[in-house]
């Protein structure tokens, strides 16, 4: 290694480490604050906690309802994800492998939804939901999550199904399998890598969704994690229970960060697959 390379390496690492710190320090600061007493948060914001006050976490979990928000989110995202993947792959399969009148129209109708600002649709959507008595219900929110996840899911899976060899499906059909059976028993298993990528993308998108529940789901008992936490913050800051707030924030961050660290390769690939097209 020449001296030029050495200096450059030090320089490169220096800059890279600075950004690494900028990313991690706010997160670490939040974790530290979540383990302090309120007094410590104010007197020594950057100091280490004197003792690990995990009672903040349990207070946030039960008294500040973070636990309930979690369960709501798991329910909504679980159902939405299954629905999105099922309906999305069904539509994508048809659009990728069958010829019929109006096919291009349906495809562009789905794909067009990716480029419009959701906030524009949100106001009429609120009233569509109201008229169908779907406001403030879990099933209403699930249907909306599915509908707004379809554009990308259909777009991604259509191109994926196109890459799969058609000979296998044809063989299954000749053997007497119905179209439906061919889809579920032959094509879906073959599409697994694509389903995983788009599944991760949708899971994070739906788990992290904020604007849709904020507008369509204002019932206190039905809040999902993100909106619950934000509303909690608005009310708790006046009460001054900062330690529980930090604890709630950390509790909300830990599961996704944990999942990400375990599956970072798949998560990175799944999320960037969307932009690469």
């Amino acid at each position, binding site marked *: *290694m020449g001296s030029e*390379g050495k200096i*450059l*390496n030090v320089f*490169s*690492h220096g*800059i*890279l480490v600075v*950004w690494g710190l900028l*990313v*991690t*320090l*706010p997160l670490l600061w*939040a974790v530290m*604050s979540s383990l302090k007493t309120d007094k410590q948060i*104010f007197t020594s*914001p*950057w100091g280490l906690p004197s003792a690990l006050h995990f009672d903040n976490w349990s207070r946030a979990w039960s008294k500040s309802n973070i636990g309930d928000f979690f369960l709501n989110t798991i329910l909504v995202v679980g159902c939405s994800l299954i629905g999105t993947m099922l309906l999305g792959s069904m*539509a994508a*399969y048809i659009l990728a492998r*069958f010829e019929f009148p109006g096919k291009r129209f349906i495809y562009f109708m*789905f794909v067009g*939804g990716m*480029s419009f*600002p*959701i*906030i*524009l*649709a*949100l*106001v*009429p*959507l*609120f009233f*569509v939901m109201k008229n169908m008595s779907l406001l403030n219900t879990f099933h209403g929110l699930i*249907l909306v999550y599915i*509908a707004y996840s*379809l554009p990308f899911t*259909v777009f991604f899976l259509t191109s994926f199904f196109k890459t799969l060899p058609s000979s296998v499906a044809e063989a299954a059909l000749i053997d007497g399998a*119905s*179209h439906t059976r061919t889809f579920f028993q032959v094509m879906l298993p073959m599409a697994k890598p694509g389903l995983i990528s788009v599944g991760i993308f949708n899971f994070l998108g739906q*788990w992290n969704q*904020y*604007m849709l529940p*904020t507008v369509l789901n204002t019932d206190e008992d039905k809040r999902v*994690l993100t909106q619950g*936490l934000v509303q909690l913050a608005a009310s708790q800051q006046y009460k001054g229970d900062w330690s529980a707030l*930090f604890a709630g*924030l950390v509790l909300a*961050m830990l599961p*996704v*960060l944990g999942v*990400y660290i375990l599956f*970072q390769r798949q998560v*990175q690939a799944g*999320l*960037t697959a969307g*932009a*690469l*097209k």
Partner: protein
Amino acid sequence: MQHGKYRFIAGFLALPVILYAVFVISPFVQAVYYSFTDWTGLSSDFKMVGFKNYDWLLHDDLFWKAVGHNVVLLLVVPLVTLGLGLFFAFMLNVGGRGRKNAAVSGVRGSGLYKVIYFFPQVLSIAIVALLFQFTYNPRNGAINSFLDGVGLDSLQQQWLADPKLALWCLMAVMVWSNVGFYVVLFSAGMSSIPRDFYEAALLDGANRIKTFFKITLPLLWDTVQTGWIYMGIIALDAFAVVQIMTVGPGGPADSTQVMGYYVYTKTFHDGQAGRATTIGVAMLIVTLIFAVIVTRLGRRERLEY
């Protein structure tokens, strides 16, 4: 057989298409329709008012203020985010010249950097916004107390409460949460560029900066362009950061008002759903103009490799 095929097609498409039409297409179409009405959003009666809302919009100071902020967001946030993303990705992939006798190589531990940089991307923007609301807090926030700790207390600010700073604070958060995504995205693109391109350039005496602009950037251009559109849509939205981080509605002295949030307050606070959808339509137009400009600017000869 043919009959069975069409029944199958209809059976598989029916549910997704209906769901999509009811919850996505119909609201978008209705939004355009409502923008020509005086609908309050509270009652079901309204009448057509022609272009009155659009006329109002042209003369509404707050709307133009919001547009101005969106334009700033649109220029600054993608530029800084993509710039940093390219810079870090280049260092990770080409920054460690001289290792393992290869002419170009990534720095050691580039995988770890990518894992860490990507952290914010998996967090909800709502959670990120909350985290930074705490971080910016003038009394016990991380930033002011850090400045105090290192003896730079003269630099302490009322970050989010200062109309001159609030928008910049939001932009910093948007950059913070998105850079990692582009580092990973551009890294993937850069790693597929053949090594001998760099080696040939180095033999010709090109330095690192030159190789970046002559080789890396042109070959990555398509990805950069897609990234620019993605980032632009995020910058045009900015709903969550504005709603969560700055005192409302729209920050101190409307200094962080953006179109997306203005639509929200017009509907749910002011009861002017008709006008709100007009703002939404304006936002759509800005988005389309932006997309057209980016695609036009980016149209250049495709480089095959």
